[in-house]
C-alpha cells in the first residue's frame, strides 16, 4: 500500500532537463531574431547591388545594342551565304565534267573509229540507302568503222572508257542488243561494195549525290 497523495498539478510538472528551457527559448529567440535581421540586411544589400548591376548592364546594353544588331545581321547573312555555298557545292559535285570526259574520249578513241553521235542523258534519282537526291548520267555513243578487225577497235574503245581516266566515274560500259552490226554499202568510187561496222555503246556513270 502506497500512501501517495500528490498535490502537484500537471501544469507544474516539467521535464527534468539540465538545460533551462526558458533560457534556451530566450537565446533561441535572440538567435532567430539576429539571423532574421542579418538575412534581411543581406537581402537588402543584395537588392541594392542587383539594382546597381542592372543599371550598369542597361547602360552597357544601350552602348552595345547597335553593334549587337549589326553583328546579328552579319551572322544571318553569313548563315545564308554558307547555305547557298553548300547548295552550290553540292550542285557542283553532281555535275559531270564534260570537258574532261570529251578530252579523255578524244585521246582514247582508236583512229579507225568514226563517231557518229554522242548523247549524254541526265536523270535524277535517290540513293539506295537514304533519301539523298542523286544525279545520274548515261553516255550513248554510236559510231562506225571499217577494217579487218573491228571488234578489237571497239574493245579498245570499251577499254578506254574503262580506263582510269573514266573508271572513277564510269560504273559500267555495255553494248546493247544488236549494237554491233555490219552493213555492206557501195562506197568505193568503183562502186564496189564495202563492209562497214556500226556499233552502239552505253556508258553508265556512277550516280552523283547532292550530299
Amino acid at each position, binding site marked *: 500500500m*502506497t*500512501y*501517495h497523495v500528490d498535490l502537484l*498539478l500537471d501544469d507544474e510538472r516539467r521535464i*527534468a532537463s539540465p538545460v533551462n528551457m526558458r533560457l534556451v527559448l530566450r537565446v533561441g529567440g535572440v538567435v532567430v531574431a539576429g539571423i532574421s535581421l542579418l538575412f534581411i540586411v543581406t537581402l537588402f544589400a543584395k537588392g541594392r547591388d542587383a539594382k546597381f548591376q542592372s543599371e550598369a548592364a542597361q547602360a552597357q546594353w544601350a552602348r552595345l545594342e547597335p553593334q549587337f544588331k549589326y553583328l546579328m545581321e552579319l551572322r544571318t547573312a553569313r548563315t545564308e551565304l554558307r547555305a547557298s555555298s553548300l547548295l552550290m557545292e553540292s550542285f557542283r559535285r553532281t555535275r559531270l565534267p564534260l570537258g574532261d570526259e570529251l578530252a579523255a574520249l578524244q585521246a582514247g578513241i582508236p583512229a579507225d573509229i568514226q563517231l557518229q553521235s554522242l548523247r549524254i542523258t541526265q536523270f535524277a534519282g535517290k540513293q539506295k540507302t537514304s533519301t539523298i537526291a542523286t544525279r545520274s548520267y548515261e553516255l550513248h555513243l554510236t559510231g562506225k568503222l571499217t577494217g579487218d578487225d573491228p571488234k578489237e577497235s571497239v574493245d579498245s574503245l570499251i577499254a578506254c572508257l574503262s580506263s582510269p581516266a573514266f573508271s572513277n566515274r564510269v560504273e559500267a560500259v555495255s553494248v546493247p542488243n544488236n549494237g554491233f552490226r555490219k552493213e555492206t554499202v557501195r562506197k568505193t568510187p568503183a562502186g564496189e561494195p564495202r563492209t562497214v561496222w556500226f556499233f552502239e555503246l552505253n556508258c553508265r556513270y556512277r550516280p552523283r549525290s547532292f550530299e
Partner: protein
Amino acid sequence: MVLPADLVKNTLGGGVTGAFAKLKFGRKAVRTDVVGLDVGDATTRVVRLMRLGDTSTLVAADLLPPVELPSDETGEVRPAPLLLPKALRARYAAVAVTSPQACIRLLSVPAGTDNNRANLNFGFFMERMGLPEGSAHRIGYEIVSTENRDQNVLAVSLPERQTRWAVSLLPQGIPAPYSLQVSGAAELNCFSRELTAHHGDAPAIFMQIGSDVTHVAAFYKGRLAFYRQCQLGSHAIVRTIQEKLGIEEKLVPGALEDDLIDASAPIAAAIEPLLRQLVLVREFVERKRTCRIEKILLSGSLLGTKYWNEPIVKVMGIVPATWNPLDTLPCQPGALAERVKGNESRFASAMGAALAVLEMES
C-alpha cells in the same frame, strides 16, 4: 488524486513549460532516480533513492539549511532556488512540505457508486477537514481501504501559497518536481514499508514528532487504521523544559543529551499531551479492530528520548522503539553525510515522499 484545478483557488498557470510537460508526462515512464525533499521545517532533509530492478537503494542523505515557509499572509511567493549538492541531484524530486497549516484527515465516507465518488469534491473536503470557507487550499485524497459500505479516504490539504512556494524551490534544471506531498502523509508511506518489511501485520502506532506538529498513526494489518495530527512538537517541548529548568532555549538540547541534570519530570510534563493522544489512539483502534497494539515506534525530532520510555510505558504498557527511517532501505557506503548522524530519525518524510514516486510506477 488532486482535485480539479478549477476548484482550487489561485493556482498558477502552466505556461510553455507546463504545456510541454503535459505532452511529455504520461505518467508511464518509470522514474528510477528520485530525490526526496522535506522542506519547511527547522532543517531541510534530503534523500536520494535509486531503483535497480525491484530493489530501491539509499544513495545519499543530507541535512541542508532550512528554507523559510511562507506565512499565510498575501504576497508574492518567490523563494531562492534550492541548490542541492551533486550527490543529491537526481532527475526528479518528490517534495514533502512540513507545514503547521497542512491538514491531514483519515475520513470515513460511503463507498461504492459513482455518485458517492462524485460527492468527493472540493466543498466536501473543505467542510470535512474544517478548512475556513474562502481560504485557498489545494486538496488531494487517496482511498486507503474499503470496508463494508465505507471507505477510508486519506485527505490532505495545503495552503495554495505554500504549494506554489514548494514548486518554485525547483524552478529549472534538475531535479524537476514530480510529486508534491504533505510531510505527515509522506512519512506514512515510509512507515508502511517499514511495517511490511520488519514487523509483519502487528498492530502498531507510529509517532512522528515534528517541530510544531506531531503525527500519530495507527496501523492494523499493515493498513492505516487511524490518523491524528497534534499541534504540538519539539518546539513546545523545548519551551516547557526551558521554563521548568530555567535555562536558555538553545541550551535545552545539550542539557537533555547530557546526564548532568535529571530531565525526566519536565519531559514527562512536556509530552503529557502527546501521551494523551497515544492513549486515545490505542483505545480507538483496539476497540474498533478488537486487537492489541503491540508496537510503538517514534521518529522525528526526538529530544531527550531516553526520558520518554518511562512515561510511555506507564500509560501504554509498551516500551517504545526509536525508528530510523534510513534503515528501511539498503544503504550505499558513504551515503550518509556527517551531519546526518544522530538525526537519522528525521528523514521519514523525505524517504516516504521519494518511495511513493519509486513505488508508484514499479
